[in-house]
């Protein structure tokens, strides 16, 4: 590993309670050089992930294959210094934001890079977007200003139950999609004997829950089920969320008269769907063929 190529680096940092490995995107898939079992350092859990984020990142940052040193030249204002096996040195100025760098940030970075270059030092400015987990590297190649975006290759959190990783979140999202489409299949079967009612799955909502953003799991499109009669939608099933208190997912059923919550609860074999009474959230009724027909106004 050399200090010269931002597109080949893998970087581990702590952001809030998470360990995040950033690396290049759009290149040949490469092995992840950090491992939760060996690279999970113990650190104090924080309540607010944004608080003190910059100090946390600076103190935890590691680049595989490069040695970290305290900056040897204070005049550059860099947070860390990295050295490769050939003794090449790279200074890094770390910025932490909850958004991507803006034009003003690029202007300031350019100024810093030019000053460092005139002092014959290699400096890079690293912008961590902790909201969307991205790392923007700004550097000079000769006199040419360059930008690279590194993405999270792996995200995990140490919990009292062990390692909770991005894969767990992605699996739960997949499972939610499967459960929602499974419910829709069942509804279509229940309605199949009723002339005049058809199901339409052409619409969708974007699922982008906080846990997905925290673990850099891509947004997903979740289908809406519309039950149509005489070209009018008599009921829409709109998935609202997977991670809610007291249930394993919620779909809102919107009819002409009202909106009712449908929640998933675990049973011995999997999950059941329950309709929540609008007047008293504690009253639940099992969602079955009969309940569906009552909702769409069929006898």
């Amino acid at each position, binding site marked *: 590993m050399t200090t010269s190529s931002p597109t080949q680096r893998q970087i581990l940092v702590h952001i809030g309670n998470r360990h995040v490995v950033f690396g290049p995107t759009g290149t040949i898939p490469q092995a992840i050089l950090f491992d939760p079992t060996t690279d999970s350092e113990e650190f104090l859990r924080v309540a607010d992930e*944004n608080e003190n984020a910059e100090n946390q990142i600076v103190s935890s940052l590691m680049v595989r294959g490069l040695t970290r040193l305290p900056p040897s030249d204070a005049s550059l204002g860099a947070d860390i210094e990295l050295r490769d096996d050939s003794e090449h040195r790279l200074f890094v100025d770390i910025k932490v934001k*909850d958004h991507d760098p803006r034009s003003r940030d690029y202007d300031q970075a350019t100024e810093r890079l030019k000053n460092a270059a005139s002092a014959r030092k290699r400096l890079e400015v690293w912008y961590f977007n902790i909201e969307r987990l991205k790392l923007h590297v700004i550097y000079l190649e000769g006199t040419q200003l360059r930008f690279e975006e590194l993405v999270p290759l792996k995200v995990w959190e140490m919990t009292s139950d062990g390692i909770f990783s991005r894969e767990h979140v992605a699996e739960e999202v997949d499972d939610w999609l499967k459960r929602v489409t499974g419910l829709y299949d069942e509804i279509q079967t229940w309605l199949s004997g009723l002339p005049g009612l058809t199901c339409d799955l052409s619409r969708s909502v974007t699922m982008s829950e906080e846990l997905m953003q925290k673990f850099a799991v891509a947004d997903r499109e979740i289908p809406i089920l519309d039950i149509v009669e005489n070209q009018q*939608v008599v009921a*829409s099933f709109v998935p609202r969320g997977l991670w*809610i208190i007291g249930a394993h997912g*919620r779909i*809102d059923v*919107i009819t002409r008269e009202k909106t009712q919550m449908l929640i998933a609860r675990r049973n011995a074999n999997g999950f059941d769907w329950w309709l929540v009474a609008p007047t008293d*959230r504690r009253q639940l009724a099992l969602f079955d063929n009969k309940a569906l027909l009552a909702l769409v106004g069929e006898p």
Partner: protein
Amino acid sequence: MSRLVDTQRAYDRISQLLDQEMRNRKGSTTELERFRQTLDVAFYLLGWAQFEYLVRKEAEDQIEAKAKGHTVERHAWNYLKANLKGLAVRLRLDIIFHGNPVVRNSLDKDYTLRNEAAHDYKLPKEAKDISGWLKSLEKLVDDF
């Protein structure tokens, strides 16, 4: 009955209008979902603002009543009464829910989430059912 009831009713009505737009396929689902998220955060913060006001008033009433007592503690209560303005919400919650630590702890956690929501406009999962959550606040106020 407090203003929270009106807030809950207003939320239910506006939320229902958005739902009907969704059912009638008027406009993009993405935009309607964004409206809903904005509506939810706005009513979550409004609900908290109204609840805070009621907590402030209730704490003041309790402090005033205790300051009128005849024990030595009344001097401390009088001191508190003279410095009410600076009394933080969490301390007011301590006074009101002293006898109910479960509710007190739960509100303490909620208040932290509320402070985060006021900055990042993200709704905690504890409050995703805004209507039910507003109702639960109203119940707490009834039990003061």
